[in-house]
C-alpha cells in the first residue's frame, strides 16, 4: 500500500498538479491577508475557501485521478496486491498530495501573518486541519463514486451532485425543514442532521472556535447550547474523524464486488 501511495504522490508531483494547487493557495492566502485588512473578515474568506473550495477540488481530483489511472489500476490488480490496497492507496496518495499543498500553500501566508501580529495561531491551525479533513473526505467519496461506475460522465456527475448536496443544498433543506416545523422542538433533529454533513460539521467546529455567533446559524447555536464551545468542538471534530474513515470502508466495499 505504501508503495502505491508513494507512486501516486510522485505521479501528481510529476504532473505539476500538486505544485499548481500549492501556488494557487499561496496566492489566495497572501491576497486575502494583505488586502482584506480586517482580520475577522479575512477569517470569513478563508472559511469559505475551506468549506466550499477544498471539498470541490477534492471531488474533482478524486474523480479525475481515478479515471485517468484506470489502466494502471488494472495493471495493479493483476499483481500480488490486495484489492483494497490498490484503491485505498490511490485515495490516500491523492489526499496526502492535496492536503500537503493546502497546508503549505495557506500555511506560509498564515505564518507570515502570525509573525507580524501574533494573533490567531490556533485558529489558523484549526482551519488547515479542517481543510485537510474535508479534502480527504471528498476525495474519498468521489473515488468511491467513480469506482462504482465505468462511465466517466456519470461518475463526474454523481460526484459533483454529492458535493453540491453537501455544500449548498443540504443547508437549504435543513433551513426549510426548520421553518416548516418551527412549532416543534427541533434542536435534536438539527443536531443529528448536522452529523450527516461533514461540511456543516467543519463549519460549526471553526465557528465555535472563532465564537462568531452571527455566523453560527441554527445548528451552531444548538451545538453551543447543548455542549458548550469546547465540548461542542471536540464532538464535531470526533465525528469528522469518523467521516474520514468512512471512504476507507466505502471504497473497500464497492471495489470488492467490481469486475475490471
Amino acid at each position, binding site marked *: 500500500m505504501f*508503495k*502505491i501511495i508513494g*507512486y501516486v504522490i510522485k*505521479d501528481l508531483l*510529476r*504532473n505539476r498538479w500538486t505544485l499548481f494547487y500549492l501556488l494557487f493557495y499561496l496566492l489566495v492566502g497572501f491576497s486575502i491577508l494583505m488586502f482584506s485588512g480586517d482580520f475577522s473578515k479575512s477569517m470569513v474568506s478563508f472559511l469559505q475557501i475551506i468549506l466550499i473550495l477544498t471539498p470541490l477540488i477534492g471531488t474533482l481530483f478524486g474523480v479525475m485521478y481515478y479515471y485517468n*489511472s484506470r*489502466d*494502471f489500476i*488494472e*495493471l*495493479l*490488480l*493483476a*499483481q*500480488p*496486491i*490486495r*484489492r483494497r490496497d490498490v484503491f485505498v492507496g490511490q485515495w490516500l496518495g491523492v489526499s496526502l498530495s492535496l492536503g500537503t499543498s493546502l497546508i503549505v500553500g495557506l500555511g506560509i501566508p498564515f505564518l507570515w501573518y502570525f509573525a507580524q501580529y501574533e494573533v490567531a495561531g490556533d485558529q489558523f491551525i484549526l482551519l488547515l486541519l479542517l481543510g485537510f479533513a474535508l479534502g480527504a473526505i471528498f476525495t474519498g467519496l468521489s473515488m468511491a463514486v467513480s469506482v462504482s461506475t465505468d462511465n466517466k460522465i456519470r461518475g463526474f456527475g454523481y460526484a459533483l451532485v454529492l458535493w453540491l448536496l453537501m455544500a449548498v443544498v443540504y443547508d437549504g433543506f435543513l433551513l426549510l425543514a426548520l421553518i416548516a416545523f418551527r412549532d416543534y422542538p427541533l434542536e435534536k433533529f438539527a443536531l443529528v442532521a448536522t452529523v450527516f454533513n461533514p461540511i456543516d460539521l467543519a463549519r460549526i467546529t471553526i465557528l465555535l472556535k472563532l465564537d462568531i455567533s452571527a455566523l453560527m446559524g441554527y445548528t451552531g447555536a444548538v451545538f453551543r447550547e447543548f455542549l458548550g464551545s469546547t465540548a461542542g468542538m471536540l464532538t464535531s471534530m470526533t465525528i469528522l474523524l469518523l467521516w474520514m474513515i468512512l471512504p476507507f470502508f466505502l471504497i473497500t466495499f464497492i471495489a470488492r*464486488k467490481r*469486475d*475490471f
Partner: protein
Amino acid sequence: MVKFIEVNKRFGRLQVLKDVSIDVEEGIKTAILGPNGSGKTTLIKTLLGMVIPDSGDVIFKGESVLGKYKYRREIVYMPQIALFPQNLTVKELLELIPKLRKQEAKYDDLVDRFGVNEFMHKKMNALSGGMRQKVNLVLAFMFDVPLVILDEPTNGLDPVAVLELKKLLYEEEKKGRTIMFTSHIMDFVQQMADRIVFLLEGVVNFEGTVSEILTETGTSNLEEAVASLIIQNQNQKAYV
C-alpha cells in the same frame, strides 16, 4: 495447475461464461481460442481475481483463488492492451513493477532480445503499439514465476519479434513454466500450442491437442478446424 470449475459469469444480460470447466496442465503451453467476445479474456481475468465469477470456482495449485491475492506472486499476466501509466519511461516502468510485486526481475537479456534497449528512456506515451507490446513481453517474462498468461502476445509485433517470441516460449517451456495464451493468429497457435481450449459463446466447445482437433473436424490445418467448429455450432443453432 489451474482448474476452472463450472465458472459462470454474466455482465448484465450477457452470459459471458457458461459452466466453464477447464484443466490447465502444468509445464505445457495451452491456447485459449475463440471468436471475439467468446469469453477468453473474461476467463483469464477470473483466474487473476479481476473478474469475480457469479458461481463456480477457480483453483490454482490446489487452492481456490477467490478473494485471495498472494497466489498472484506466482502468475504474470500480459494484458491484451498495454496498460501502463503513460508518463513513465520504459526503464522506470521496468523498475516499478518488481517493487510493487516485491519480486526480483531480470530484464537485461530480454530487453536486448526484443530491441527494447533502443527506447529504454522514452516515455510510454511516445511509443508505437508494437514497441509497447515488446515492453509488455519483457514485463511478462522478467519474473521467475511458474505461470505466464499472455493475452494476444503477437499483437502489433513485427515478424522478427514474433520469431523471437516463439523461441522464448520454447525456452520457457523447457524451464518448466506453464504458459496460457490467446491468439487470433492460427498459424502461431498451431505451432506453439500443446493443448487447445476452444470457447464459443462462453461455452467450452473443444478441449484437446492440435492433432485431436484436426482429426475430429477432418481438416488439415487449425484455421479450417476452428472455422468448421464455428459453422457446426451455427448449424446446430439453426436446427434448434
